[in-house]
């Protein structure tokens, strides 16, 4: 990922704001509600055993999975 060139952005008339994803329990609660109520459905793709983490990451990296790749641990 690149870095923001603030000076160049300003010259171009673009206001930049850098946002980082927050790990927030309140958002997890909100997501759980949205899914539990049927408002939001998670698109699951393939589930692979933990030992196949290599294949799992490659599927994700190459964009070959239609839906979320999940590792089954137990």
């Amino acid at each position, binding site marked *: 990922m690149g870095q923001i060139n603030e000076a160049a952005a300003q010259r171009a008339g673009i206001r930049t704001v850098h*946002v980082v994803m927050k790990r*927030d329990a309140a958002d997890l609660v909100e997501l759980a509600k949205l899914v539990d109520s049927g408002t939001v459905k998670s698109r699951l793709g393939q589930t692979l055993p933990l030992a196949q983490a290599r294949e799992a990451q490659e599927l*994700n990296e190459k964009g070959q999975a239609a839906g979320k790749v999940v590792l089954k641990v137990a």
Partner: protein
Amino acid sequence: MKAIRIREYGDASTLKLEDTPQLTIEHDQLLVKIRDAGVNPIDWKIRAGYLKERMPSAFPLTMGQDFAGEVAELGHGTSGFAPGDRVFGFAQGTYAEYAVAQSSTIAAMPESMAFDVAASLPTPGSTALQLVRDVVGAKAGMRILIHGAAGSVGSLAVQIAKHLGAPVIGTATGPDISYLRILGVEEVIDYKLERFEDSVSEADAVIDLVGGDTLARSLRSSRKAVSSRLPWDRLMKRPRSARAFAPFTW
């Protein structure tokens, strides 16, 4: 316990299934038994060393940050959870039988939710929710163009935007086109068949989950754009009418 670890940055062959020492928890931490772990782009970006300057890793490093599982043990001073509780969220090293979590980054799973569903949510769901609700500020009638609308973040972003009353225009291709129609995307654009600039009138906001020149092209037709990718060198060559831009990283 068993864990997937790396000892150096590199391709997927650096991932090794290893027997590792049992974890110990400190004050305010929980030990969670992992049932399912979500695989996210950040996992392989860390593995490949793309983030080593911003987030240097200590080796050996157990991979993964999203999980669903059960509380195994509570540290002193941890409240709100009990052993055996079904929980999901963020922890360090979730491609493993156990991981250490903070109570501020996990939540209880609804009774009827499956572990694989819960494990699929933390990073993509938090990213989608924060992008749509907080960064873009989706509300009724706001037209939002989402690039990569059928992906893990995109599909959740579409549904959250619609829930907030915002009509969505989405780009995808192949079988994902019919998937977006099922999700209720108002205008679906096959990016292999048409250029979105030619068919979409101005959107109130653009969420770019694709990268490349998508963002720069989007900035010409919208006042507000947000991207999880940062193609700065190209972006700066085509500034035009853009007024706000929010790069989003996780």
